């Protein structure tokens, strides 16, 4: 899970063609394409889903590469632990990320007890690297029916929910988005974690 630092690309581009170091365009073109258009997502096929032994989530940071996290455990409170190959771990409560480990800038909701809250509430949020604790105000909009194009399943009917986040100390206002299937499980979500990272999109594939 990574993104290209745009500043580095400003420096790379002239070097690519003025250098005597002979950079192969077969190496360069995917990088440039990714820098301009972002990394393209690859839809999960039915075979991939069937072959998967455990539930998994496809995670993608804005313009970054896609990664897969496998469901490693579920505790008695319904907290899901998703583990990635490169040491990234995400804890979710019905799709809402409560804690991350292994990212360059991690995040943790410190006193979260329930799934996407029905009521407006305040929470302490801990951002890591650098460390900072802030009070986050969370409120939610009403659910509306919607449709999404979801990998091998095609267009499916979902319930859509918007969660509003505000940190007054940082004058920061953001929105997390959730799409629930008809069983009430989150199928897709776009969430904001640490202010130093871009938003993350998660697509969940449950094997239970």
């Amino acid at each position: 899970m990574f993104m290209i630092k745009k500043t580095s690309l400003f420096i790379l581009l002239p070097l690519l063609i003025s250098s005597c170091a002979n950079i192969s365009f077969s190496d360069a073109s995917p990088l440039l394409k990714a820098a301009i258009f972002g990394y393209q997502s690859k839809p999960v096929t039915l075979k991939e889903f069937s072959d998967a032994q455990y539930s998994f989530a496809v995670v993608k940071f804005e313009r970054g590469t896609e990664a897969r996290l496998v469901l490693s455990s579920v505790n008695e409170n319904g907290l899901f632990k998703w583990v990635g190959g490169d040491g990234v771990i995400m804890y979710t409560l019905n799709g809402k990320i409560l804690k991350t480990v292994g990212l360059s800038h991690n995040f943790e909701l410190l006193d979260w007890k329930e799934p996407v809250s029905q009521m407006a509430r305040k929470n302490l949020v801990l951002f890591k690297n650098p460390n900072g604790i802030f009070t986050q105000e969370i409120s939610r909009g009403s659910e509306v029916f919607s449709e999404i194009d979801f990998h091998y399943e095609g267009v499916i009917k979902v319930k859509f929910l918007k969660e509003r986040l505000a940190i007054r100390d940082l004058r920061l206002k953001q929105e997390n988005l959730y799409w629930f299937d008809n069983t009430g499980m989150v199928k897709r979500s776009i969430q904001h974690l640490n202010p130093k990272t871009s938003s993350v999109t998660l697509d969940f594939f449950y094997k239970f």
Partner: protein
Amino acid sequence: MKFAMNKLVSILLMLYSAFLLSSQDEYIYPSNAISFSNYGTSGLIQIPSARFHPGGTLAFNWVDNEPYQRGSIIAYPFDWLEASYQYTDIENALYSLSPGFSGDQTYKDKSFDAKIRLFQETDLMPAIAFGSRDLGGTGIFSSEYFVASKRINNVDFSLGMGWGILSGGQKITNPFGYISEQFEERTGQADDSQGGDFNFGSFFSGPAAIFAGAEIFLPNLNGSRLKIEYDGVDYEEEGFPNGAEDFDLAFKPIDKKQESKFNIGFVYPVTEGAHFKLSWTKGNTLSFGFSINANFSKENPSVKKRDNLIPISNGPAIKKANEIQDLYLYRNALKYLNQNRLYLHKASLENDQLEIAYQQNKYIKYAQSTGRVAKILDEISPDSITKFKITNLNAGIPMHSVVIDRNSLQLYESQKYSTPLKKDIAVLRGDKNTVYKYEPTIKKPAIFWSIAPSLRSQIGGPDGFYFGDLAVAFHSETLFASNLTLSVSAQAGLVDNFEGLKLASDSLLPHVRTDQVFYLKQSKDFNIPRLQLNYFTNLSKDLYGKIAIGYLESMFGGVGGEILYRPFHQSFAIGAELWRVRQRDFNMIFKFRDYETTTGHINVYYEEPNTNIVFALKGGKFLAQDSGITVDFHRRFQSGARIGAFFSLTDISKYEFGEGSFDKGFYFYIPIEYFFSNHSKPLTGFGLRPIQRDGAQALVHAKHLYGVTDQAQEFNVMRDWGYVYD
């Protein structure tokens, strides 16, 4: 006791919350990256600060601040040293008095600035730095200064004292005047100077003045800053304020005189490494610009590496099969190493030790490639093998061998403990007399080639600011034997704007470089920059040799060679090279011109182990038959990036050398792998001279022995030992 404990807990909690609060600031002020002044060095608006980017940072700054447009390249070889090259367009002067020569192009000034940190900031004391502007240029921006910077909460204060052009602030008595009368008056460039001299004689002389300013970090505005300063620039002395009175080529005075000594500016960080800036200077001038910077020193590249070893799908079965016959082991080693671009050349099994010799051009860190070879061998080797001896070849020559205890390799692998593994390895000089039992037949000649774009540029000449061509280039390396190679580069031009180039050389020396205009124009359709046949040999212990013949570089072809003594357990090397060369025709294809010469140097290298600074001293006869020395030094960073500078002094006068007085410049190289998800050994970058002249020009042949034998020194192998499990 309980009270004391409570007190201790309270103190710890207070300290922790203070720590959190200070970290919390980094979200409120998310960008603390040092910003640049309009003069292209770290600072406020017009004045410098005592701030430095971390070592290994490269930056570019561009500013339009009437009557100047200035582009700067800034390098930080160390945390305490800032070196920058300034290219300034001066709008009230012409490049020359001859419109037929330079048209209406305005005057271009090139200069070097440097700044050194004297004291680092502490809780109570500010950072203090000394710097000089226009250190090696025409002197029209020449100034020296001491400056102190202290950050208090979200405000970074700077206070300094300046001389020369920076003596425009609050005037004070020059303190150096108490030491000697010579500091009372500021002198210009020496009479015989052709510009480009370091005019140390005028340092700290003439009037002195105080300047000051503050950079205020604005909360929750993405790291934006407001800058306010009391200007230190003396606009009556800077550039050509009075037009033709100051300089023949100045066609008008500067329109806007200073109306206010206070400047104000705003910096908006688009990202941590890219800033846009706007400022109001002199009370009447709006300036704007941008800067970009990136740090290339760290092992934290832009793109995370994703090319792990290709897994061996049925390792235990292969291991079992390899117990039957040694040949199976050799062949499987060949197969699984090759598929990871680690090319096995030789192998031998002696008792419990498996020896292999391999070549690679993928990993910049030799320990990493050794570690990967060891990992593959460990997966496929029968359990009876307890040691691996892994020899790294380059140009067919054994460069170094690492003997690794297999048990230790396995023991520390899960936690990637490279340090304890060090105790169970031996790093040996490569032995060319080792006899191997297995040598796979490699089809010769083996040809490796690629096609890539190529750009040649000429920037800042009198004919126009930029001339260049874009070409498609073919590069190949043909191996007739592992130590006999042919390097070829050829390129076909696609588009260019060379028609306007017309500056002929005025050099008094043989035109070994200054006929560049003819080379560019006449080779624009097709050219062969290099066609070089190389033969490498290991003459004896620690002594290496090379012979080369062909079109050795774009302007010279010929024959010659070099020898290099590089003791394995030391960090120095001594070499000599001698070449008989003839100047190539301007079309850079096959023909030659009449000029020919013999050139050669004695080269001494030393790499300082703690700072990783490589010093090179090269003395001898150059292409234009002048004799002298070149001093070159660069710092090699953990990532493999290099930032360096050079200068040459030869037996020609400043007058004979021409503009610039002597040859000098700087360069930087960045590992290509910094930008890609795959490991890659080559570096990319460029070098920059203020002006290209003929004096002190050495032959630029490919595959210099010092580079080829880089891994023939224990120091260079062990430097990156931490990556053996990577």
